[in-house]
């Protein structure tokens, strides 16, 4: 692991219990427990993943649904803790996505900027410094003191995006699953991401879209059933991935 290694995964495995029958309430759980009917099986979401990402690299992750792509992103963002192996991350991980989830309708635009910014791990001081940039970018300067429930959905989306992209991230993470919905929003995300990349951010992006990945990433990791099937040069991995897909359909 050299000094430019910014993320390193060594033999990472993620395994969790999936109940055989979903239990929705404590009452149900207690009854089933007394009957001895609580059972679960182990699900291995990621298995012995080894990856190394260097500063300034753009890594693409490709694979079918359920291959463990999003789980891998969650491991790197520390949303999921690993059961085995070692994760080393140098720098802050910022996910780029629609983060309007943390907005409160009764608070003003400005109050929501502070709330949302601190949810993303920023301090009040950092937010204060970027306030003007965020307001400019979101184009809501006139409504800054109005409660956000009076905003149009477009304004809310712009504001969320402006906050999420106000700081040049050290490590940027983009899960395409979150970016779908609005084609303009998706485009905007990609443009911003390219700008960050050009300025030195390390980027990890999950997608089904091989063309999209090859346009941004120099390296691609192909995940299948929780394992790395191949990783390395983007073109080469993509070629093999496409071949295997065709094989399956023919």
């Amino acid at each position, binding site marked *: 692991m050299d000094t430019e290694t910014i993320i390193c995964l060594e033999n990472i495995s993620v395994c969790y219990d999936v109940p055989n029958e979903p239990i929705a309430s404590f009452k149900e759980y207690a009854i089933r427990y007394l009957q001895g009917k609580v059972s679960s099986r182990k699900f291995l979401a990621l298995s012995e993943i080894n990856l190394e990402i260097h500063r300034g690299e753009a890594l693409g992750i490709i694979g079918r649904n359920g291959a463990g792509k999003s789980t891998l992103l969650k491991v790197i963002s520390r949303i999921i803790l*690993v059961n085995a192996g070692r994760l*080393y991350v140098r720098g*802050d991980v910022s996910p780029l996505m629609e983060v309007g989830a943390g907005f409160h309708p009764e608070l003003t635009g400005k109050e929501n900027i502070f709330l949302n910014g*601190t949810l993303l791990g920023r301090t009040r001081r950092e937010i204060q410094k970027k306030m003007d940039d965020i307001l400019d970018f979101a184009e809501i300067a006139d409504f800054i003191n109005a409660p956000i429930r009076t905003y149009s959905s477009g304004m809310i989306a712009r504001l969320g995006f402006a906050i999420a992209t106000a700081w040049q991230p050290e490590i940027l993470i983009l899960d395409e699953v979150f970016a779908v919905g609005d084609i303009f929003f998706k485009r905007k995300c990609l443009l911003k991401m390219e700008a960050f990349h050009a300025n030195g951010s390390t980027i990890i992006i999950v997608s089904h879209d091989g063309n999209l990945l090859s346009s941004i990433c120099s390296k691609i990791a192909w995940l299948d059933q929780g394992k790395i099937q191949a990783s390395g040069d983007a073109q080469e991995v993509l070629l093999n991935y496409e071949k295997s897909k065709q094989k399956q359909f023919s």
Partner: protein
Amino acid sequence: MEKTASNVNIYDSAKQNNPAIEELKGIIKYRDLVFQLIRRDIVARYKRSVLGIAWTMLNPLGTMIIITIVFSQIFDSVEKYPVYVLSGLIAWNFFAQTTTAAMQQTVWGASLYHRIYLPRTIFTVSAIGTGLVNFLLAMLPLSVIMAFIGVPFTKALLVLPLSVLLITLFALGIGLLFSSMVIFFPDVAEMYHIAITGWMYLTPIFYPANILPDTSRAFILGLNPMYYLMQLYRLPIYEGRLPDPTTLLTSAAIAVITLLAGWGVFSKKARAIAYM
């Protein structure tokens, strides 16, 4: 990038402490978020109400007046009954409301846990923080009532910050314990609501402790942690005297043990949130 090499946050899973300690470090790092969440809860609650922040003060006052009208005849042995009721009510409301809010906030926050890294205890901590602000605000009308009825302000009141701190720690511990269950089973919130209503009637808030039957009094009060904590708060206000060392030490022990248990269990359980 502005950060120098020594300033970069490095995460290494091989060098992680116990989850409870990592959680505490997380809260310290995200302290600005705690502040923002408290602010959100307080501002959002009062924004569309005419009475605004005064509501926090009028609410226990109204309850106290009703209870006084209904029960003062029955409990005429209790001198200065309104102060007795109000001091107990404020302490109890703080405990009951914050633990309930802690669960609601944690359920609300669970959707964010899937998307971004946050210290898991953050919503419980901020819910207790919001309650604490309301608790302190409610003490204003209490002091007005004390002055009005003629309950003397004594030096014993100086112990109140300690009483408030211990009730806060206890509420945080209970809030965390139940939040760690409500993440997995939403119906725990309803059960807690039923339990806390029963608990309220078993705690001498609007009746004097000596009306409990002799046979069961020691049992009911001895096993009720809120009784000790409430005494710690009520005695300096209502009787103008310091709680005896036994009450003080028992309350401190209960508060600290509950907090450690809640913090430990929650930190451990919360690791599974993102899997669901």
